[in-house]
């Protein structure tokens, strides 16, 4: 059976992630229906963690390289996967309950192609957001084209929904790391249920008015990939215009899932983003992100690939 798993699922880092960090299921409504799945890593004393939210096609574990990579810098990272929510209000209520349950004061959000709605005023009013990193809104942007039919998603069979999503995945003529990330995501899509897929697609196709002004007072970094498989440049330009004050972290290549295919670069941008809160009450790490961690913390187990853990790759200048 394991032979059929893709390379990333069999990689040492993924296995080490799954064996060291438990998947927690949190029933926020206590009715057994709305269960968030989370991986919570790092010191619980940090109450302003980085929360990673997956795209339509993803599960919480797609952020394993962020969790593992940033853990060595003392950052508390929570990869969270929502249960099926069918509208933005439901999602917001659920998210707020999750944060309350976890006793978090404020959070930094790393949103991977979540669609426009994540920036809607309703989400903003949760009022626990400190900063945001937005990454590659490609997959979902193209799904926006289904606006008219979105009302029907709930009754489409999962096979059809999966086809809709996977139609966006390019696997031709790409380099290995990108191909691996696509394989990994295909596996995640396959694991999703009909209601998970249908609700996420519905949510993403919900028309919503975004008031960029409302976001002007929080720091935003936009991570985007400039290769052909990802966002069209018009979509990117629109995104920049919506957030004129955002820090733009462009990657040359990486495909649609750079957190998997370019995890070290994405982690670097996450670190640079989070670093601005160093030494304040809003920091996401118990260590200073400006300084190199002491060497004993870098004693990596085999299976951790993020560059943070690779001692010999640190810059040493004599």
């Amino acid at each position, binding site marked *: 059976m394991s032979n059929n798993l893709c390379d990333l699922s069999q990689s*040492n880092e993924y296995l080490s992630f799954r064996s060291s960090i438990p998947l927690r299921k949190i029933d926020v409504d206590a009715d057994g229906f709305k269960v968030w799945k989370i991986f919570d890593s790092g010191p619980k004393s940090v109450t302003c963690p980085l929360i990673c939210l997956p795209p339509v096609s993803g599960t919480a574990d797609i952020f394993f390289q962020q969790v593992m990579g940033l853990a060595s810098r003392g950052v508390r990272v929570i990869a969270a996967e929502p249960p099926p929510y069918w509208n933005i209000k439901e999602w917001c209520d659920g998210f707020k309950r999750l944060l309350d349950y976890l006793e978090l004061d404020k959070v930094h959000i790393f949103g991977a192609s979540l669609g426009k709605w994540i920036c809607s005023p309703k989400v903003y009013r949760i009022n626990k957001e400190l900063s945001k990193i937005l990454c590659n809104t490609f997959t979902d942007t193209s799904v926006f084209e289904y606006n008219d039919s979105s009302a029907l998603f709930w009754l489409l069979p999962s096979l059809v929904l999966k086809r809709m999503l996977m139609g966006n995945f390019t696997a031709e003529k790409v380099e290995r790391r990108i191909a691996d990330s696509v394989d990994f995501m295909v596996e995640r899509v396959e694991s999703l249920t009909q209601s998970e897929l249908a609700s996420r697609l519905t949510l993403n196709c919900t028309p919503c008015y975004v008031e960029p002004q409302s976001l002007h007072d929080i720091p935003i970094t936009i991570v985007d990939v400039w290769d*052909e498989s990802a966002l069209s440049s018009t979509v990117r330009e629109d995104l920049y215009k919506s957030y004129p004050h955002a820090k733009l972290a462009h990657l040359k290549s990486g495909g649609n899932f750079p957190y998997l295919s370019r995890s070290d670069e994405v982690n670097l941008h996450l670190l640079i983003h989070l670093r601005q809160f160093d030494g304040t009450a809003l920091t996401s790490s118990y260590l200073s992100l400006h300084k190199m961690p002491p060497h004993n913390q870098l004693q990596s187990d085999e299976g951790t690939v993020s560059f943070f853990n690779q001692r010999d790759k640190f810059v040493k200048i004599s």
Partner: protein
Amino acid sequence: MSSRKKVLLKVIILGDSGVGKTSLMNQFVNKKFSNQYKATIGADFLTKEVIVDDRIVTMQIWDTAGQERFQSLGVAFYRGADCCVLVFDVTAPNTFKSLESWRDEFLIQASPRAPENFPFVILGNKVDLDNRAVSAKRAQQWCQSKNDIPYFETSAKEAVNVELAFQTIARNALAQETEAELYNEFPDQIKLNANDNNRNRDGDNCAC
């Protein structure tokens, strides 16, 4: 390779602490200069759109910390660099002597495909000061000995040659980028067959 495709150029600035790396970047990107010295802590970057030979390109300029103890970001920021700018202070000979080791350091960390042809640009900064200690001739000689690296004498404070230097940096970076892309026309072999479980053991430098 379509010429319409937007180009991202990654430029890395290296040099001893206090030579003016951050000031040069700020002068170029924001047209600002401050006399106040503040050590850069950890690498950071700014982006700027420039026009090179009628093409709009986006430069992502990485400023680094000259002091070792702040070098906390690892190799990811060297990856995919298109040009490396080495800066020294014309009033401080030691910073000039360090150029060699900065250059070596860069080549080791970034490991570009053709190290001997990788574009570097040398900037002798602070020419506005009187107490000059490294002559232009000496700097030029060194640059010539290193495969004719372009050399500019700059002043971030008085915006002398900054624009010109970065134009050259952008042009050389663009040439490098274009070349790198030609290589990418021949991507690694991809096996889409999930049954082939040998492939993550090929000793590729991928993260597996």
